[in-house]
């Protein structure tokens, strides 16, 4: 398996992930329709859009947990299926409660052998693998801490380590930076990006705020109001494009290498504003 690295152009090789004419809706509501998109090795695709626009549903489709209404979703040349261990999945950051009987290393170990039935005894090779994963996400120092005592950022690093177990061919991330401070946002997104650069593993990265990953993104898929726009950040993050997509005037302001979107007709405005504010404080 060879893979070109860190490119911004399309690959001549077979795409790792391929959606064709995909459509999904619930009740009368269409989330997206006629969605065709290929993700090739080494690509970083950011999926943006307001709450409820179907970003998580898109990931569930790729994970084989959600059936399409029409169209196809293929991973590595085959129809997607549930529980495919060649896909690494990093969920939305939600704090693991204190008192969970698990140490940092146990969380990572679940990625290695958490799917296996049988007496819960780890093999030496698996222990070594866990050790390597802990090191690769910089978690060795707190490997033996109970996970419930760790900060959101530390927990999220462990989830990256868990997702990297078993050498995934594709990484799916569902708002992995949510409610992390800026330093941890950078740390976690850099871990994900490093995997992409060093192994060519393509990344589908759902996020509210594109700024923490702006320097890594090759392409953007912007979902809103049952429609979508797809292209490079320069093609999609423009006032005309988003105004047309939202059907209401939206301003995209670029300041100091950051993108701020103003005028989105729901609570998202607040979020963008908030994170812009946070960055300004740096």
């Amino acid at each position, binding site marked *: 398996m060879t893979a070109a690295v860190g490119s911004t152009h399309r690959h001549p090789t077979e795409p790792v992930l391929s959606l064709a004419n995909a459509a999904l809706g619930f009740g009368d509501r269409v989330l997206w329709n006629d969605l065709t998109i290929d993700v090739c090795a080494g690509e970083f695709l950011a999926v943006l859009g307001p709450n409820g626009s179907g970003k998580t549903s898109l990931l569930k489709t790729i994970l084989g947990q959600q059936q399409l209404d029409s169209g196809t979703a293929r991973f590595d040349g085959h129809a997607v299926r549930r529980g495919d261990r060649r896909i690494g999945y990093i969920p939305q950051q939600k704090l693991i409660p204190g008192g969970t*009987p*698990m140490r940092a290393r146990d969380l990572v170990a679940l990625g290695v052998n958490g*799917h296996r039935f049988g007496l*819960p005894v780890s093999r030496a090779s698996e222990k070594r693998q866990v050790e390597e994963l802990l090191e690769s996400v910089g978690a060795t120092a707190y490997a033996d801490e109970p996970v419930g005592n760790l900060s959101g950022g530390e927990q999220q690093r462990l989830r990256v380590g868990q997702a990297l177990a078993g050498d995934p061919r594709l990484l*799916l991330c569902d708002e992995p930076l949510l409610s992390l401070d800026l330093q941890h946002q950078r740390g976690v997104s850099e871990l994900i990006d490093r995997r992409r650069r060093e192994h060519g593993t393509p990344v589908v990265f759902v996020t509210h705020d594109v700024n923490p990953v702006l320097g890594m993104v090759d392409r953007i898929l912007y979902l809103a109001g049952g429609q979508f726009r797809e292209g490079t950040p320069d093609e999609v993050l423009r006032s005309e494009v988003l105004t047309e997509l939202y059907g209401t005037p939206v301003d995209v302001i670029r300041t100091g290498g950051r993108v701020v979107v103003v005028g989105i007709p729901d609570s998202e405005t607040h979020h963008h504003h908030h994170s812009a504010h946070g960055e300004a404080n740096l």
Partner: protein
Amino acid sequence: MITLGELWARMFNFENYGELLTLVHNSLIAGAILGIVGGLIGVFVMQRDMAFAVHGISELSFAGAAAALLFGVNVVAGSLAGALIAAIMIGLLGSRARDRNSIIGVLMPFGLGLGILFLALYPGRSGNKFGLLTGQIISVDDPQLVWLTGISIVVLIGLLVMWRPLSFDSLDADVAAARGVPTRFVSLAFMVLLGLIVAVSVQIIGALLVLALLVTPAAAALRLSASPLWVPVLAMVFGFTSAVGGILLALGGSLPISPYITTISFSIYLIARLVGLRTKTRAGLR
């Protein structure tokens, strides 16, 4: 009025202790295994936030046992049937916590009401009747004790075999499903194991007090440690101590065993809380 001396004599009496001990030999074994398995499954009951489900299942198990008593069939079988029906229904209908709690809230009074109806219709001795609610191990006969022990061992093996996928599913069902854990099967299988062990507990400690063996020991263990090894080990030790200690203390007196078991299990929990407060280092027992 009862004097203190009489009270003591009713609660604790160690005359002819050796003879009594041989009589309850089988109950002790059943209690010991239930204590161990109850402590172990409690670790998952806590992680999956299912204490209320345990209570709901035990009320339906009580209804099943009461029906069996009324119709003269095997009480353990009735207890099992009630518990399994409740557990599987909760498992199928209540995958989300909110749905689950409302289903349990609906099922529980229904089960308890049915059980009370069957008991009221039952013409037999009243000791048997109350036993289902408050524990009756001494009156369970030997063949039944063999069944109770066997079921507990099945649950123990099931838990050990499912340990990793079940831990993964309890921590984060979405990620577990994405990484190849058959989460629907695992959750349902867990409910079946839970139903089985609840049915056994109803026979031994009574429907109203099942939580003392299926929740309290694990809750105490979680106060002392966050280690994936020590929490289950401590929970099993605490469950064992409560069950066996309770049976031994109750032996000579003329009272049911349940209050002894619940008191020991509660005391362990209190001590664990205090010790947990004192050793508030970040990790406690690792």
